[in-house]
């Protein structure tokens, strides 16, 4: 049986429909990426899978005893909330120190077990969240825009880590992402959402669809333009500086 089966799912908040008629499944060991513009229902879909919102219509069925490892976007860490990495790892399960360390190592962080969570860098922080999600060896990892706040190389590193985890544990991965180019290459399947499923399939086939082009084509071009612009700007700026020095 598939890990997760979603049939004709409709979700709404009050009168606002967030998702309509979504059907999809996730198989053992596959990497599925959800892309879509803001407000397209990506997060709502994940929330429905973990049971945080209930379907108005349709159904979500999961394999009996399915273990989910959830990696949130961020934590609400008030400055007055002291918590060490080790304590965070032990929030829901009793673990000895060496087990904790082995999971942290799997997620690519070593020697941080006694650090405060608030003292970690963005990349380290996300890896600790990943390490905690790996506890109990889940059948599927679910990541909600886990690289938000990381720079491009940082998120590329993080996705490589996920890839490694998948290889070593064989778990399935379901993730939402904005970093299209980075994610596309490592996904088995891409689902493009915009209130409903616009298109889905292998990364190459999705990129080629007119629906995807319409949603992201101009956006991707815009990002490139922005990059060029800032590059030009930095160049001009340094030229001005050198003039000033002369």
């Amino acid at each position, binding site marked *: 049986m598939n890990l997760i089966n979603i049939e004709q799912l409709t979700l709404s908040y009050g009168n606002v429909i967030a998702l309509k008629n979504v059907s999809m499944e996730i198989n053992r060991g596959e990497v599925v990426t959800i892309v879509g513009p803001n407000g397209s229902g990506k997060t709502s879909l994940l*929330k429905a899978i973990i049971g945080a919102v209930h379907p108005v219509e349709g159904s979500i069925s999961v394999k009996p005893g399915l273990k989910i490892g959830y990696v949130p976007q961020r934590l609400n860490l008030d400055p*007055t*909330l*002291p918590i060490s990495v080790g304590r965070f790892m032990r929030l*829901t399960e009793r673990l000895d120190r060496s087990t904790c360390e082995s999971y942290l190592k799997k997620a690519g962080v070593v020697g941080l077990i006694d650090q405060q969570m608030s003292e970690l860098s963005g990349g380290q922080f996300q890896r600790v969240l990943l390490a905690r999600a790996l506890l109990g060896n889940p059948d599927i990892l679910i990541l909600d825009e886990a690289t938000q706040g990381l720079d491009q190389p940082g998120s590329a590193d993080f996705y490589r880590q996920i890839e490694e985890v998948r290889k070593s544990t064989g778990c399935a991965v379901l993730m939402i992402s904005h970093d299209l180019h980075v994610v596309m290459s490592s996904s088995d399947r891409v689902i493009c959402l915009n209130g409903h499923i616009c298109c889905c399939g292998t990364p190459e086939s999705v990129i080629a669809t007119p629906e995807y082009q319409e949603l992201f084509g101009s956006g991707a071009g815009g990002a490139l333009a922005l990059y060029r612009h800032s590059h030009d700007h930095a160049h001009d700026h340094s030229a001005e500086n050198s003039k000033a020095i002369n």
Partner: protein
Amino acid sequence: MLDDFMTRALLAGIGLALVSAPLGCFVVWRRMAYFGDATAHAAMLGVALSLAIQTDVFFGALIFAIIMAWITTQLSGRNYSMDTLLGVFSHSFLAVGLVIVSFLSGVRIDLMAYLFGDILAVSKSDLSIIWSGTLVVLGLLTWRWKALFLSTLNEQLAYASGFNPTREQLILTISLGITVAVSIKIVGVLLITAMLIIPAAAAGNLVRNPEIMVFSAGVISCISVLLGLRASYIFDTPPGPTIVCIALSIFVLVNLFTALRKLSF
């Protein structure tokens, strides 16, 4: 032993300290400071109505504290933000309460006792109510600790671990209602939030793990009660505010200490 008013005051104060420390940590972590304040103000309406029908103020305060919390969680995000709603209801409830009290003829009511509390006037039956409330809240928080803490860190994470953050929020709200209700006689409406926040805020600076923060907040609360009562006896000052002043002094000292420690590194 309980016949001595100072002993009763001390026991009441320790009861409050034990319950306000862990709850205060959650209030600080979840940034609910204003929420606690609003609940306390709203409880005044409950106090007034209880006096009008001549029952114990505890239940009136409890009911209105919970009503207030319930209204704001239900209504927020629709037309007004939580902040605005809290402002509207807390001060209106307080005002309506004060107006109702002014209509009560025949009974001479010392409202100051409910605004600032009068820990020296705590009776044996008050003491049993305070300690029952304390034990109920401590029981609730211990029982739900893991779920509450996870929901505080991230709601989705809590859902994925099989907890229901909405229910945990309700448990916290009810605990806050009970705490406000039992502490009205001790420190009064205006100082309840202080006893929730100040010890927790002071403790947060000192420690590195959440459970130790709760424990330290408890110790700071108890010290504030002990020293505060002693100081109010010696200097003949009102006990509730004196307790809060001691807590504030500890907060300032802790912050000076941590600032110095950072400098020396």
